[in-house]
């Protein structure tokens, strides 16, 4: 209930206690704290010592353009504000952990180093924080089909004893988490805002009480929504998990940026659900190095999503087609033609024989299918044949061949005056 001097000092230096007032001292950013904490460590000082009467002497050797002595002093003098805020937050069941606490997520420290947040606020079962699990992310406004899939992923993870890590927002986040906890599984939610409200929301309450859920936030529990915070939160979702699955992403925004950041930093294996939505960024994310996951929940082995795959850039896959390994095979199976994807979504399960036939055909036609996949985003709006060959770096005549075939297949619509091609969106 009451905190150690170290925790108190870290809170004073790093968190807001209410909506910031104009002219008030700004808490340190994670980067600034990293710098200051390192200096404290060098000086063999503990944060708690900053609460002593002689703290100005202790700081005599500290010099920093942004983290001035006055700023530190003003932050440390917020004791009354901290007491008022903590009393309120703790009443709602909110607790505080700092990096030195046993339950602080170790994966975060390992992956982010000094940039791992100095403080997390949380409600629910702290012991879940070091469980790892599957990160499930996606848009707030996902389609009903995607949400059904998401819910099923949550339930399947639950039955496999795998924790779901997500962002607690509307849509995919919330659905994956509820899918898990409603199936008696466990879940971690990393909130970008309003932890205090979430602590009392009916949808989370019983799961928090039954220890199957933990909600944490690096931002103060009454923080309102803020795009920057939401973006910053994504990295914690990835870094607390062992693998990540993107249900649906736009071509910009939180999910998109988070996915690319994960690819760039290479935190956890990244999987993407095939989608029918042509406006989605799912495919682009795969093109940048993620893998397609099974479109069928039944076939998916959740634990396999934690296994690091060879980077799946398109060229590699082309070679893989000749010499398929077990894992690549898995990839290419759902990495199928547009037609296969849509048939699967419609739920018509092909027989084993048909699947095999299709599989063969797929290999024969893989270059054409591959072409189509790249063509799709280009042809959202009508585009000329020359522009296509330029964009994809293909010979004009080859492009022409395939375009004719695509129009015949009904995949493309040919427009005249001037001649352009557009993806065919039936119905």
């Amino acid at each position, binding site marked *: *209930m*009451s*905190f150690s*001097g170290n925790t*108190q*000092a870290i809170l*004073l230096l790093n968190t807001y*206690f*209410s*909506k910031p*007032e104009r002219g*008030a*001292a700004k808490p340190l950013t994670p980067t600034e704290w990293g710098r200051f904490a390192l200096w404290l460590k060098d000086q063999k000082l503990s944060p*708690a010592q900053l*609460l*002593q*009467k002689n*703290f100005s002497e202790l700081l005599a050797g500290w010099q920093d353009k942004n983290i001035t002595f006055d700023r530190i002093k*003003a932050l*440390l*003098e*917020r*004791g*009354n*504000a*901290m*007491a*008022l*805020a*903590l*009393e*309120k937050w*703790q*009443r*709602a*069941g909110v607790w505080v952990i700092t990096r030195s606490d046993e339950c602080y997520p170790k994966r975060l420290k390992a992956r982010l180093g000094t940039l791992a947040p100095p403080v997390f606020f949380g*409600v*629910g079962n702290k012991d879940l924080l070091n469980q790892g699990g599957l990160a499930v992310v996606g848009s707030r406004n996902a389609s009903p089909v995607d949400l059904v899939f998401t819910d099923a992923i949550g339930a399947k993870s639950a039955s496999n004893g795998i924790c779901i890590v997500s962002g607690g927002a509307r849509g995919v986040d919330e659905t994956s988490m509820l899918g898990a906890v409603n199936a008696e599984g466990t879940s971690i939610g990393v909130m970008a805002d309003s932890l205090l*409200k979430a*602590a*009392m*929301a*009916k949808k*989370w*309450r*019983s799961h*928090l*009480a039954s220890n199957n859920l933990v909600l944490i936030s690096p931002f103060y529990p009454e923080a309102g929504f803020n795009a920057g915070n939401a973006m910053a939160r994504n990295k914690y979702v990835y870094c607390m998990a062992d693998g990540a699955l993107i249900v649906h992403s736009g071509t910009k925004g939180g999910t998109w940026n988070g996915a690319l950041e994960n690819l760039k930093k290479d935190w956890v294996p990244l999987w993407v659900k095939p989608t029918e939505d042509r406006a989605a960024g799912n495919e682009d994310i795969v093109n940048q190095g993620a893998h397609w996951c099974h479109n069928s929940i039944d076939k998916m082995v959740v634990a396999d999503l934690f296994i690091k795959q060879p980077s799946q850039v398109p060229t590699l896959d082309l070679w893989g087609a000749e010499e398929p390994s077990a894992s690549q095979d898995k990839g290419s199976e759902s990495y199928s033609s547009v037609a296969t994807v849509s048939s699967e979504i419609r739920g018509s399960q092909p027989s084993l024989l048909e699947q095999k036939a299709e599989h063969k055909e797929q290999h024969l036609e893989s270059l054409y299918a591959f072409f189509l996949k790249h063509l799709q985003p280009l042809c959202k709006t009508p585009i000329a044949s020359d522009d296509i060959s330029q964009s994809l770096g293909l010979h004009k005549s080859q492009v022409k061949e395939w375009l004719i075939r695509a129009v015949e297949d009904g995949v493309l619509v040919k427009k005249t005056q001037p001649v352009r091609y557009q993806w065919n969106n039936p119905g």
Partner: protein
Amino acid sequence: MEYDQAQELLRTSLDNPEAEFRDGQWEAIDALVNQRQKLLVVQRTGWGKSSVYFISTKIFRDRGRGVTIIISPLLALMRNQIDSAARLGVEAVTLNSTNQDEWETIKNRILANQVDCLLISPERLANDDFINHVLMPVSENISLMVVDEAHCISDWGHDFRPDYRRIINILQRLPANTPVLGTTATANNRVVDDIKSQLGDIVVQRGPLIRDGLSLQTLELPDQASRLAWLAQTIPQLNGTGIVYVLTKRDADQVADWLVEQGIDAKAYYSGVTDPAFETSDGYRQHLEDQLLNNRLDVLVATTALGMGYDKPDLAFVIHYQAPGSIVAYYQQVGRAGRGIASSTGVLLSGREDRDIHEYFRGSVFPTEDEVNQILNALDNSDGLTARQLEEHSNVSNGQIEKVLKMLSIENPAPIFKDGRVWKRTANPFSMDHDRIAHLTQQRESEWQEVQDYMSTDVCLMTFLRKALDDGNRESCDCCANCLEQNIIATEIESDIAHQAAVFLRQAEAPIKPNKQAAKDAFVQYDFRTNIPLALQAQVGRVLSRWGDAGWGYMVAEDKHNGHFRDELVTATAEMIRERWNPEELPTWVCCIPSRNHPELVPSFAQRLADALKLPFVDAITKNRDNSLQKLQQNRYQRCRNLDGAFTVTECYSGPVLLVDDIVDSGWTSTVAAALLQQAGSGKVYPVALASTSTGD
């Protein structure tokens, strides 16, 4: 900050160039502003605590820090303090229920750094709206928190208050570099130790609690009539003005009425006391405090609501009409007398009802487990409910709902949390702490025993009090009834006044206030909307007695049990109606509330009452169904719901009518019957009843 500079500030504040710090004042200031310590100051009232916190405030402000927050339970004290702060050039303001329209301005002034000191009540600090919208925005700069009457934070204190539990939860979270000041005049060692153990690293500064010139006496007078008579004959003999302490609001009204009847200028004072000339109860209370302060009243008849910190140096006497629950509470109350005058008097009367009242108080401190569970279940099944909505979702009275909400919400972590206007269930588990409840109840029992010991002791009464407060000084006072071995005030009662008091008590009549606002959606069949139209409302009625009370109340209870109200009650009621009530329009006929369980009881009484008043009795109302007992309905929604469709008017006349019932509780039965009668075409409806069991809830 050095001693000399601080002394300069003191001299300015007291407007006295020679002024010196009292023992301990400078040490306290130094501990706060230089050592940044957490400090508990135990000093008698009048020692000068306010100099400590105002001078400290001044010093912090000169260093560029923000507002000091002073948490104090007394409104009058706040105004006195604001004046004395002004002398020091300290700008102090208060936020309370009487100046709600100024909150925004005050908040902006605090934000603009124009306020040095903010005085608030503990209730205010427990109010989430206030915390979120006023305090939090300025909280980063708060220089010091001061908790007045700090003994209230201890379970061991005689006066533990739930709102102080919130305060201790805040203080426990203060870091080591943040000073805090607690002050009290009444804390024994056990309370001080408890506060220390709860707050950890806190320094205690303790001074002597000497009180010279206060003459104490005790007097056992079992019946109320004797005590009323004693008050009426004693108060005029005492020079100066004083306080009579009573245990309940009803006693405050009754005693004040009696004293006024006896020509003494008395007023009742309690929380929620109202006066038509004042918009709010707090406003009226401030007015009463001022009246007494300026000797414009002979006596204020007060409950403990006239509590801590009321500082009137020339208060001549403090008389307890009933014994308080603990000796520390007694010391605190009687200790208000004569601080600034040579001699004063403190008499503790004790009556036979005291024990029952304290037993009731002890039993009603905590809500029952069933009530707690009803509220938790209702909240569990929702995403937030207001206190009003909880009435619909439980059969718990409004007052008990508030009690449950308060008890649960001060826990930390708490099972419920107020989010804006609604209460929400949190994920935190809750179970009643039966051990703690048993411990507190036992604590109260042993405190009550100590009061009885005081009543019967033959040692010096002042020494007895000091000992209870762990004050080291054990010299006898040489001025109490025990030291002098004779009464300070005569104990014989003149038989004439005693007789008048007995008559006064018999006429414990009270108005029956009509209900005007029905619970939403409760009257589906009758279709009464929230506001009952004026034309259907009952008139203000009259009730003869309090159920079970001395006077008629006892007889009513006995007769109800035996199934027949005796003629003496008929005569008394008729007398009340004819001689003292005089309704605006005289009723021309009489009817009554029917009952299926006791079909004869009330009609027989109403018939005989009609005969005595020479009016026709009409069996006008029928009961349609066996609804459950109205007295089992605990809140407005359930009471209204239970009556929906219960009665039909079968016969009706156009003149004003007397509506008779035996017992009135919430008044909803007569409200509904009155509406139905007037819908059927009757004239005005005047309810009358034999006894009231209403608790004012």
